[in-house]
């Protein structure tokens, strides 16, 4: 009996225990059942995506091989990897598909990822064909050889420029060994046109640095992201390929009323005169480190107006010159000097340009060389006129000189006259008059008329005393004085 009770009690305890265990386990089992149902469902959907990398740590300049392995019932669309773009340059290599038993398809997308910067970088979770791959962290180490960091970097790119402005952007890279070389791919920058690219190197603190430059012209305004082309540093110790982080540049619009052919750059202007087939031509040269493009607005019409000709006759040529700081563009304008050009003519030409530093429209002026340019017949005519003028001047000069000489001789004769009669004779002979009154009337001078009267009285005065002589001297003096002033 006791055994039976004991057995019953044991059974009861066991039942209670089992029941309570069951109560505890049911939710767990239910979840497990659900999960297995989900897994079964997933297995039924056959979608699994994994990111498989060959390593989790790499050096700058090296690439990370990544496989996106997908299991599913169909081949999915290519995965959207834009979230990886900020930290890595993605090179899509190939895709493979494989049919598996049970109707599954295994798709592998092969990628190469080049890190843009150092540090811990995350390959973010991606979705494809109904599956999600978990993120993967990658450690990117700097590239150091011989204590030299060989990774390139942007060299202070501008953040904001003007539309039409020409800028130079550079990537600077230290060479890990002196014999290494740097090569970059052809660059394409949205919103810009590449005018010129060149490399230069320099030594600093015993390290050879290479600078890769691009001279760009901003075409349209807006906000643009520049992705540098890949650069390779290679040498005897290895080969490294780099991709830089994207930089953002804002291109501001130039005020819309400014014509498109007004240069957005500082300009240098010069002018000179050239002889072409014996005809003078004004030549105007404009240079700029910025891009000048086609004809600068306003020059053609102003030159045509200055030269009094049609705009078609103004010659234009554009050329470029390579310098250490890129391409320098230049324009040369040439127009025939019009005939009847004299130095007094206004030959100022004003040219508008947009100063990108100040953000203002400015005007600069230049004066074309002044010259005398008249037709040949006019030159001959002027020459003849000049000769005539000179001849006339010589003639009048001669006449004046002769009359002065005559006057001086006359004055001398007056001085040597000893008597009134001699003086009278002299005056009458010189003038060809018969009487002193006639002489006085000829000269038409009241002063001389009075002198003539005095002389007349003296001539017909018989006395030869001192008063007479004094009077004669006085008359002679007055005559000499008069004729001296006249000479």
């Amino acid at each position, binding site marked *: 009996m006791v055994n039976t009770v004991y057995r019953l009690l044991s059974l009861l305890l066991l039942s209670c225990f089992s029941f309570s265990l069951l109560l505890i386990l049911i939710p767990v089992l239910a979840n497990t059942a659900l999960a297995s149902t989900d897994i079964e469902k997933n297995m039924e959907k056959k979608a699994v995506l994994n990111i498989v990398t060959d390593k989790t740590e790499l050096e700058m300049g090296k690439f990370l091989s990544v496989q996106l392995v997908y299991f599913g019932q169909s081949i999915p669309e290519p*995965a959207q990897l834009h979230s990886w773009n900020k930290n890595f340059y993605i090179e899509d290599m190939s895709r493979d598909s494989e049919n598996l038993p049970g109707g599954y398809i295994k798709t592998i997308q092969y990628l190469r990822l080049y890190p843009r910067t150092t540090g811990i970088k995350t390959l973010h979770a991606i979705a494809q064909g109904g*599956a999600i791959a978990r993120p993967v962290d990658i450690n990117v180490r700097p590239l150091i050889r011989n204590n030299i960091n060989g990774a390139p970097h942007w060299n202070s790119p501008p953040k904001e420029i003007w539309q039409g402005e020409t800028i130079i952007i550079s990537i600077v890279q230290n060479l890990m060994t002196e014999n290494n070389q740097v090569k970059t791919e052809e660059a394409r920058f949205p919103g810009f046109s590449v005018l010129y690219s060149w490399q230069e190197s320099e030594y600093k603190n015993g390290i050879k640095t290479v600078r890769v430059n691009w001279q760009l012209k901003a075409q349209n305004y807006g906000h643009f992201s520049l992705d540098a082309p890949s650069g390779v540093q290679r040498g005897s110790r290895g080969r490294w390929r780099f991709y830089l982080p994207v930089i953002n540049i804002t291109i501001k619009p130039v005020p*819309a009323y*400014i014509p498109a052919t007004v240069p957005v750059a500082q300009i240098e202007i010069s002018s000179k005169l050239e002889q072409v087939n014996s005809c003078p031509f004004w030549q105007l040269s404009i240079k700029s480190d910025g891009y000048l493009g086609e004809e600068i607005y306003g020059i053609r019409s102003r030159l045509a107006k200055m030269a009094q000709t049609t*705009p078609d006759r103004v010659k234009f040529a554009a050329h470029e010159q390579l310098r250490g700081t890129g391409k320098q563009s230049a324009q040369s304008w040439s127009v025939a000097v019009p005939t009847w050009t004299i130095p007094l003519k206004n030959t100022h030409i004003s040219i508008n340009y947009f100063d990108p530093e100040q953000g203002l429209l400015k005007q600069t002026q230049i004066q074309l060389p002044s010259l005398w340019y008249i037709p040949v017949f006019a030159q001959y005519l002027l020459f003849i006129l000049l000769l005539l003028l000179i001849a006339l001047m010589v003639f009048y000069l001669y006449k004046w000189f002769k009359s002065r000489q005559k006057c001086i001789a006359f004055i001398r004769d007056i001085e040597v006259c000893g008597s009134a009669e001699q003086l009278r004779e002299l005056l009458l002979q010189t003038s060809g008059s018969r009487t002193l009154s006639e002489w006085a009337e000829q000269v038409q001078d009241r002063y001389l008329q009075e002198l003539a009267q005095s002389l007349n009285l003296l001539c017909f005065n018989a006395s030869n005393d001192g008063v007479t002589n004094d009077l004669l001297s006085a008359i002679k003096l007055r005559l000499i004085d008069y004729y001296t002033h006249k000479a």
Partner: protein
Amino acid sequence: MFPEGIYWYLPGALGLILVPFLVLLWIYFKQRTRWQQIADTQFLPWLQADSGKLKLTPHLLFLSAAWLMFCLALAGPRIGQWVPPALLQQSSTVRVLVDFSQSMQAIDSSQSRIAQVQQQLQQWTGVLPEQTKVGLSIFAGQPHTLLIPTMDQNLLSHFISQLSKFRPPTNGNNLASALENKEYDNSHDKNKTTSHTYLLLFSDGDSGKTALEKALKRITKVKDNYENIVIIGVGGDEAVSIPQGLNRSLTHNGVIVVSRRHSENLQRLAQAAKGKYYPLEAVNEVSLREILNIPRPEIKGKDFNQVLWHEWFYIPLLLGGLFLLAALRFTGSVSKLMVISLILLLTACHNNQTLDEQINNALQTKQYQKVLDLTQPDKRQLLSDYARFARGVACYRLKDYNCAQQVFSRLAWHLKDKSLQAQAVFNLANSYFYLGDYEQAEVLYQDAARRDIATDKTAVNIEFAHSLAKAIRETIKDVEITQQRAQWRAATSQLTEKFTDKVADGIFLPSFEKLRNNPVFRQLSVQQQQNLLKQGIKFQLYKGSSSSLENENFWVLSRQDVQPESTAQLFNQLMAYETGLHFVPDKPLDSEGQRSW
């Protein structure tokens, strides 16, 4: 000597006008002989004094005028009311060929070169020479005949009114092919009735070397098919950019393409064709007949009785009577009074109001359409700066911001008056603002502020435009993010709801706090705010497109499915098929071997 179309019943009567002069001459010589018989020539000035001099009194003037009018009335001026067609057998055919290469879209003054051609043709269509058929063809990469020669002026006017809307499907400057048109080749057909064909070519002459050489060779061959070839040069002498879409310029290999009128090329073509070249501004006041030297159909004397005439003799007759009355009955001070009254009457009839005053009145009374009509770009009258400014204001008030943008843009560049220039810059900024280009508007407001426009106007606008531009950028960025989210969601679509709910963040909502805090923005209604933002987004997404925003359909990539609603649209589709394309391109295609402008 006589105005066009006037004939005379008795042309000999016009010689009677000279009779009084002959009489006077005879009287003069007779008197002179008589005086010479009386006295020696040297004494005549004392004898004659003022006796023989003719005084021009009003009385004499009226008498002379009366005589002139009577002679004119006697000659019988008349104009043909109806002329039998048989009398006007000789007809003329004018082939108008218009260059539609891309360079013709350049805007030199206030309108594109095509628009200038259109305006000139409209002017000529109003007064076509009699018995003249006019045909219309265009060419770009390929030639297209739009209208075969017709005398129907209404039809011609209709096509010309749509001229600026035609869009050839190919780019290029294929004048050589355009000149080779077998419809006009009557060199082998000797049996055709005497119909003279004239060629009128409108072009800016901006073609590549190869195209020009081909055109020169072709025109030399076909010149004998035409009675006369006239080339009209369109465009300015200064190189300007070629617009492509809204606020973009055509570029080639990264270089902005510029174009100007190449008169030397056009002159070479004219010389090769043994024709004439005129710049467009020189033919503005000249009739088509004079330009092409089309002979006037004459009605010969023997055919006068077959014609129905409008007789006009009564007008000079009435006038003569009036002048005679004035001469005979009213003399001295009364006739002087009549003359003065006549002058005053004529002066009063003449509309002393200048164009500027009319424009000012129209502006004051808000008749903006009238202002536009008064300031229509027309080379007959040079508009003053004020008139042009008023045109810009009228466009702005009528919410035609594209027009306002064009007008103020030119004014801001060309005006000498600094104050007016500053106002033009400010108004240009406003126009760009309403077109949705807030970045450009901001730059222009800053420019206006530097030009001493009141700070209270510019500061607020600068801030507003800046905020809007930033908001637009952020909105577009947010749209891109939303797209990425949507793609993510689509890629995860096979997962259960549970997982997708955990993973998806939902649609990214834009938020522009700075703009919301802007005081001006807050004053606008929700609808106004949305319109401003929509306009900005529309501009950002569609700048660079060659089509006008108004006609652009957001969701359709090609216009193939759009039914043509106008003649120009219909022809735009037909031209594509004519070229051999099996579709209608959204943008003209470049032709191989040809420069694209």
